[in-house]
């Protein structure tokens, strides 16, 4: 198995990015479930929803582990891309189980959006041709979710990671230069050696 230090470093940077960033927000308790439906590939305006699912939804899921977040992907690119947010009515009983079942996520289009349960209403965001940032903004305004800000300790860790990343770029450029110089010299030497050999053969 990979050494402990390497694993720890990689894991911590991954966990830091899943706890913080766009999408890290706590939903109010009246949001019961979220359903997204979009196509398998990015063509025809399905890139935004896909990026939202990949980049923002994990953070939302981390901060709201109890809220089902269902992704239904379909083969047909021409289908609309929609997000349904299920919100419990103010007067409904919060502890009662939902009267319509929530399907599992699906990659073959089997989990269509369930009809709203009793005492539940649905807010719909048409996501086609929308950027993932726009989807997130309208999601937050519709649900009134509270964004989570990094703690001071996390901010320090994030700054450290960022400075590491910048230093890595500098180092990468330096090493690339070195490697290229070495390769160039090796090529020149090889060419000269070939020429010397051919001269020797001619003599």
């Amino acid at each position, binding site marked *: 198995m990979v050494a402990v230090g390497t694993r*720890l470093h990689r894991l911590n940077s991954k966990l830091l990015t899943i706890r913080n960033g766009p999408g890290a927000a706590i939903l109010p308790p009246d949001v019961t479930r979220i359903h997204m439906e979009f196509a398998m590939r990015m063509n025809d305006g399905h890139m935004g929803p896909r990026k939202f699912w990949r980049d923002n939804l994990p953070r939302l899921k981390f901060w709201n582990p109890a809220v089902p977040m269902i992704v239904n992907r379909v083969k047909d690119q021409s289908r609309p891309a929609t997000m349904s947010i299920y919100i419990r009515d103010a007067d409904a009983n919060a502890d009662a189980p939902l009267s319509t079942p929530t399907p599992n996520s699906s990659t073959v289009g089997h989990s269509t959006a369930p009809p709203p349960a009793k005492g539940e209403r649905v807010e719909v965001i048409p996501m086609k041709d929308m950027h993932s940032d726009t989807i997130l903004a309208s999601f937050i305004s519709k649900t009134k979710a509270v964004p989570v800000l990094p703690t001071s300790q996390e901010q320090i860790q994030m700054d450290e990671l960022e400075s590491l990343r910048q230093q890595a770029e500098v180092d990468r450029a330096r090493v690339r230069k070195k490697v290229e110089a070495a390769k160039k010299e090796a090529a020149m030497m090889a060419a000269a050696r070939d020429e010397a050999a051919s001269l020797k053969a001619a003599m």
Partner: protein
Amino acid sequence: MASTTQCLASLARLSLRVPARPMAISTIPNFLLPSVATPLVRYASKKSSGGNNNMRKRVVKKKKAYKTFRSYDMTNMDQYSLCDAMRYLRAFEVGSPPTSVKYEVAVKLKTQKNGPVLRNRIRLPFPVKTDTRIAVICPEDSPLALEAQQLGAVAVGEESLFEAIRQGNIQFNKLICHKESEAALKKANVGKLLGPKGLMPSAKTKTLTTDLKGTMQEMIGADEFRERNGVVRLAIGQLGFTPQMLSDNLKAFMGQVKTDMNQIDDSHVKLLDEVVLSSTSGPGFSLNGKLNPSGESLKIEDLESVM
């Protein structure tokens, strides 16, 4: 009296200053010539005057060969309770179908590199895979064949089954052979086809048996595990499992691994080093053996919702 030969020799050397072999007149510039072609000029240095220091060979240190797999100090490693790890993994896997995405466990052992390895089958309380298709090699149209079919075998027989295997028509992913058909199996010469797929029945893998019912029941929902490079890996649950289900599976698996470790002879001691939980496309979390979440913000029920 000093001899004159020495003096003459030095004089002769003076006259030989011209290179013994004329240089090749090349059209390429001097700096491009390979180092072999350029005359090497060496100067006596202080270092070499004492002895032939610069002729000393550099000693290449021999790498130490370790007899055990490397084991790390775990004091600085963050370890997570099962629920905390599940919360992160469920976030990483959000939106993927919960039956096809699996939780995986890697059990690292403190063990020697050579010697016996752990290898066994386990029937988990909550089966992870449900697509086991078993074929049984037993005499055709015998009561055994009937029994196997009743138990849910997808293919039964001797020569008919061998013929299907030879034609590449393998509709099963597990193969059992009854002891009565052992000779027929050996004669059939299908080892080359079955071996690479890991399907060849043998007593070692407990697939050469007299008790069809027991073996088949154990196989349906039974998962094989094996130690490789000091680590035992196994898919331990589906993403849709609740913390309690996953914990039950983990306990059963760890119990099995521990019994197997104790059964190995005393000259090859194996000890438990680390247990890491990951998922199909999530990172690995080192577990601390606890179930309950560490913080107040998470409850076990939160992880029981639909994915």
